[in-house]
């Protein structure tokens, strides 16, 4: 059985969606536990490629290809998880959005994909999102972390506005707030009182892991 796990890891690290798809299907047919696939194949492989990205050994396109391969595996095994009624251990739920008046979605999508491949449940509610909309969705999906993205210097102020909304609403302590995007810095994160700043997509995943503790 462990052969499949290794092959799935290879598929991700070789950015091979076709292989990922066929091995995933085979392993499910052979009765491999889909949760083991997430925990023993996808997460370690994505962590590995994430580290290589951080150290500059691979670049963003490779990272994206690996994440897409991981996503293919997830889409194959997800119906099996539902079918088996296997309770997927709640690793963490993350809501991702680009703030109001900002329609940039590339960064947000990369973070979204990497978080999914790291085993998190991700609710990506898109771009140009009002604070009210983000808060309502976060409550509806009962998320642990809210990730906000902005690419414009004019729209970063919406992140502070969102934190103010949480304060006024009395729900600041219910969520961890992480932020990212070209104009965002660690200093900005501290100034507005967010819980963390992700300098790139793999960093964002590490941040979520640290904040949730899983």
């Amino acid at each position, binding site marked *: 059985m462990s052969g499949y796990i290794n092959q799935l890891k290879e598929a991700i690290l070789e950015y091979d969606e076709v292989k990922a798809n066929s091995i995933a299907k085979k392993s499910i047919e052979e009765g491999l536990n889909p949760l083991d696939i997430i925990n023993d194949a996808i997460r370690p492989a994505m962590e590995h490629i994430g580290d290589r990205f951080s150290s500059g050994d691979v670049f963003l396109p490779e990272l994206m290809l690996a994440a897409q391969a991981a996503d293919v595996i997830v889409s194959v095994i997800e119906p099996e998880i539902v079918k088996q009624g296997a309770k997927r251990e709640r690793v963490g739920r993350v809501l991702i959005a680009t703030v109001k008046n900002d329609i940039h979605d590339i960064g947000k999508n990369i973070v979204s994909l990497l978080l999914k491949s790291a085993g998190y449940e991700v609710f990506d509610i898109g771009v140009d999102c009002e604070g009210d909309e983000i808060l309502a969705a976060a409550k509806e999906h009962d998320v642990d972390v809210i990730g906000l993205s902005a690419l414009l210097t004019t*729209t970063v102020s919406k992140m502070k506005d969102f934190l103010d909304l949480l304060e006024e609403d*009395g729900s600041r302590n219910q969520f961890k707030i992480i932020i990212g995007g*070209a104009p965002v810095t660690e200093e*900005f994160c501290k100034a507005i009182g967010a819980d963390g700043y992700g300098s790139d997509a793999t960093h964002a995943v590490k941040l979520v892991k640290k904040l949730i503790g899983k």
Partner: protein
Amino acid sequence: MSSYGLGIDAGGTYTDLAIIDFTNDTVIYSTKELTNYDKPHLAISAGLEKIEKEVRSNIMVSSLATTLATNAIIENKGGKAGLVLIGCERVPDEVNFSTSVLTLQGGHTVSGSEKQPLNFSKLKHNIETFSKGIDAIAVVSFFSVRNPDHELKVAKFIEDKTGLTVICGHTFSMKLNFEKRAVTALWNARLIPLIEKLVQSTTKVLRNFNIKGPLMIVKGDGSLMSAKTALERPVETLLSGPAASINGARHISSLNDALVVDMGGTTTDIALIQNSQVKINSDGVTIGNWKTHVRSADIRTIGVGGDSLIWLDRDEGLSVGPLKAEPLCMAAIKDTRVESILQNIKKKIDQTRWSNLNPTTLYLEKPGEERKLLPHSPYSEYLQKLNKNKEIGIAELDKLVNSNSILQCSLTPTDILVALGEMELGSVDAARLGLDIFTTYLEVDINDLWNIVQNVIGNKICIAAVNLLCEDCTAKQAISNLVNYLYVERSQSFKEEHLKAKVDLTFPVIGLGAPAPAFVCQALELFTKQCYLFDDYDTSVAIGAIVGLVKKEAYVKIRFSEQGKYTLHSEKGRKEFSSQKEAVLYGKTILKELIATQMKEENIYDYHYQVDVNNKSFSNNHGNNIIIETDLNAYATSNIKPDSVFNDNNTTSVY
């Protein structure tokens, strides 16, 4: 001619008065009278009676610290209030049937623009039924601190229509959190009838004694406000008593920096004085489950005091508090049979009589009525009647104690002090008997028991002190663990061959309250040798009431909007500017006016004024400094000594 100030502590079991001589700031007189809870003014009268007429006639200002607001919230008592919630339909959990609630569509967004139009027709349609039988109404709207427009409109309409007092949420704090704003305004409305009664009765007493000058009330941050302001903002008297006690400690000790440990019967309050100022709790006061925006001294209250129950915790060993019990020495005064019952227990420790694992426990009838000792066995007719004829076991007894149906009497730290001759209170014999029974049962000698009790109390005080001093420090848990370790080891430092760790308090400690001499300095001796107890510790609240300052605050926020504009938010509304500099300049003008108006209401025209400007900013990727928002905080203080501040010293009445 000397001029005097009168401080009154009308909070607890005793009503204390203190007279301060303004010419040299010394306390020249203090009295202590037992409080009559139904007629609290009687104790003030009795105290004033004892003060020379000559002194009384030269009192220029009086000031009152009161636990009225705190107690009302704890007991959920107060007037009947109406609560109008605009733009948020979530009613705070704790709001109960004594409040009539009306929710309206409306409210604002984070930037102060209208979120939804105000549903005025619903208000018009419901106002009559809503305001029926109501004492006062609180109006709170979503993001009203960014734009108070809806609150103001609704308040004006209700005032015009009903003539009731209406309180707007945004006037208490410019901080965010809708629910806290609602709770603050609601409690303010509910407290108005109570504070009116208190101010009226106190003013009457002062008038009867021909005492001139204004009456001030202590706020939760230790500053003072006139009785007239207190009638409008009674919620700000929350924690008035403990805050006054810290003022008193500062005055008595003349220390600019100190940790104040005020130990009472049921609880111990711990607070911090830094640069002569009381450390403020920026989160607002929380009483029970009620979270408010009320500014107060940062006071950590722990459930240990002289009358705490000493009991045997099966896991932790000997424990003290947080439950309290009537000390045996006092119970014996109330009922002469207490001593003989204790004699009987001493002969044979009867396990069935135990409650809370303290073998000295016995019960008295309902507090408030004439207290009688309940018959020897907990299975008595009286108890069974209370428990609807069911047999009574330990669990039921505890329930009756918790519901205040019966009074539990047990060995307490106070009894040990009395038995050891460290304190004079009630019956020494009863205290000694209790101590005997307890030590016999535990098979320890008296000194051991005393050391354990002191240690348990000391440890709790120290942990609370660490939490206060080290609130945001990352090493808080590590320091707490170390303090715990050092306590258990009774050692000043942890030592390994090449490693040493110790905890030093760099402040002196001030111990206040009757049990303080026995516990406070001893509790902290591992961490500091600078510990002071003062003769006046009993009356520190009354002294603190009269040495406080009048303090006013106002606040303005300037936000950068994405259109490149700067929006200023204040309690007067919002205004847009094209540059930050312009907005700050305007903000400073507004603050000066707001403070002047507040001080004028107190009849004060000469005060110390200061504005702090705080920018939240960051450097963007091009190295430009970008200001996200600017907060302007204005503070003004004035002392209450006559001549310098009050124009008219002859107004006693606030009406």
